[in-house]
């Protein structure tokens, strides 16, 4: 039995979040008394496997196959399934990336298990493992335990474990040739591409006023625009506002938009789902205005007003005018 940290790579370059997964695996390995191994799947991944073996995994399985040259959920799940059947790990951990969301539930289902996705922490009490994950976009936590027999599956949220203290080790690399047939891979992936250059660069803004779902209607955006104007700030938004077409996609801050770190970030009516927080938590001063005192945005804020934005924001505009006056 072992704890298996599954890495993600593209063109032989390891995804950074996977190091945090390895850090989680090493903590769990120590607490549960289990060896920690790692796996990386693809084509031409020998270098990546060596890199992983030098940072704490006792053994790294280099899962290599021509059919894994370009990621497909069918190929990835089939390859890891044959590896898991051979090494029979106790717990399989993944970084909670878009790619993992694409194939890990399929892999777990094929082995008749449910995956605990998006884990933010854990406890081990009397040898029993409890994982912590978030519900309601970070407003509520849940403790989750595995039932039935191993293997167990979980994915780890970005930033939940620290990758900056991984040990320097000399683990072994073992080549593993998975059994995959071309007929198992049903989709044809094409090259990655980016849309045309962004017209708005939020990353150079000194002050950003960002608006979220609390604004309720497109017409109300002007209320927040006034706050941005009086501060000389750029206007930005959380994803739902751009999904609704109330502001252009290029003004979106978060994991699928821009990552910003201005001198001041004012979040108006944004509850603070992790997808938004990762895009702005590096800001120097964070101000949050929200009617829900339990909103996760207050967790990263330096200053906060608990109240109705429709009353607070106009009052704030007046007070700033006075202060600047």
């Amino acid at each position, binding site marked *: 039995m072992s704890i298996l940290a599954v890495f993600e790579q593209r063109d032989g370059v390891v995804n950074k979040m996977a190091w945090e997964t390895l850090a989680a695996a090493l903590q769990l390995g120590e607490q549960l008394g289990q060896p920690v191994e790692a796996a990386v799947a693809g084509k031409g991944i020998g270098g990546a496997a060596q890199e992983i073996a030098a940072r704490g995994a006792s053994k790294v399985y280099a899962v290599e196959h021509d059919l894994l040259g370009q990621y497909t959920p069918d190929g990835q799940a089939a390859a890891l399934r044959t590896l898991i059947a051979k090494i029979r790990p106790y717990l399989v951990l993944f970084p909670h990336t878009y790619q993992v969301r694409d194939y890990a539930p399929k892999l777990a289902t094929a082995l008749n*298990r449910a995956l605990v996705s998006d884990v933010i922490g854990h406890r081990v009490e009397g040898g029993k493992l409890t994982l912590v994950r978030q519900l309601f976009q970070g407003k509520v936590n849940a403790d989750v335990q595995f039932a039935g027999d191993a293997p167990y599956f979980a994915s780890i949220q970005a930033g939940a474990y620290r990758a900056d203290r991984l040990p320097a080790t000399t683990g072994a690399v073992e080549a593993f040739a998975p059994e995959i047939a071309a007929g198992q891979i049903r989709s044809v992936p*094409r090259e990655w591409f980016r849309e045309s250059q962004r017209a708005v660069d939020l990353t150079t803004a000194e002050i950003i006023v960002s608006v979220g779902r609390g604004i309720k209607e497109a017409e109300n955006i002007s209320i927040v625009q006034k706050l941005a104007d009086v501060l000389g700030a750029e206007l930005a938004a959380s994803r739902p506002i751009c999904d609704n077409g109330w502001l252009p*996609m290029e003004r979106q801050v978060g994991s699928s938009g821009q990552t910003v770190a201005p001198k*001041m970030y004012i979040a108006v009516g944004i509850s603070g789902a992790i997808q938004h927080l990762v895009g702005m938590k590096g800001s120097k001063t964070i101000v949050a205005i929200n009617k829900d005192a339990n909103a996760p945005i207050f967790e990263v804020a330096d200053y906060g*007003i608990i109240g109705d934005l429709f009353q607070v924001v106009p009052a704030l505009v007046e007070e700033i005018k006075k202060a600047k006056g």
Partner: protein
Amino acid sequence: MKIVVCIKQAPARDSLLRINAANSWINEDDIAFEINEPDAYALEEGLRLKEKHGGEVVALCAGPARAAQTIREALAKGADRAIHIEDENLGALDPLAVARLMSSALAAEQPDLVLTGLQSDDLGYGQTGVILAELMSLPHATLIMQVEAEGAGIRVKRELEDGWFQHVEMPLPALLTIQSGIGKLRYATLMGIKKAKTKEIKRLTPSDLGAPGTPSIQVTRVYLPSRTKQAQLFEGPPREVAAKLVEKLKFEARVI
């Protein structure tokens, strides 16, 4: 094209959440429910594909009796009929078990395309679509921003991290999880609301659909997270709290 859209009912997004006395779930008594927003985008895409290619849109919903309201709204927006897997305790099941019920409910349907939202706003596992694809032996793709018919199959635009995208081609039948924002959501028309009253809702119970299997994960406790970082919080009359905040921003943080 026969399209099944999986929809879930979830607490309204701006609900103030409280935990129940047993620490097993939130207190549902004083909150409103609506369609899980990502699923609204899946429904929208299903309706657009039907408008373009003809066929039928079937809404599939697993949830308690109150979810009937959300199903009616989907029918009013244009779904042709619905299947409601009705049970008051689906929350006790893990995502694999719920997907098993959905898979058996679809066994007789033979859809060309199954659509789901990318995740639910309540449990947020983000897995139902992918699990369902595996159970139904369908090829799948996730976080889809565009769907085009191409020959006997489809070509989809998949969202990746950091502003990257990718096209993926696959044969039908297939399953897609739809990224929010794929298209502007429509409202139900008065005519749609009227028509919805006569549309078929097939009700199934878990016992109609076979044993869901033993759970492999269990939620043991639900609670509000303890807050670690102490923000300076102000609460009170708007003018007063605004003045206090500006004072702090000017003299403490020195950002204005």
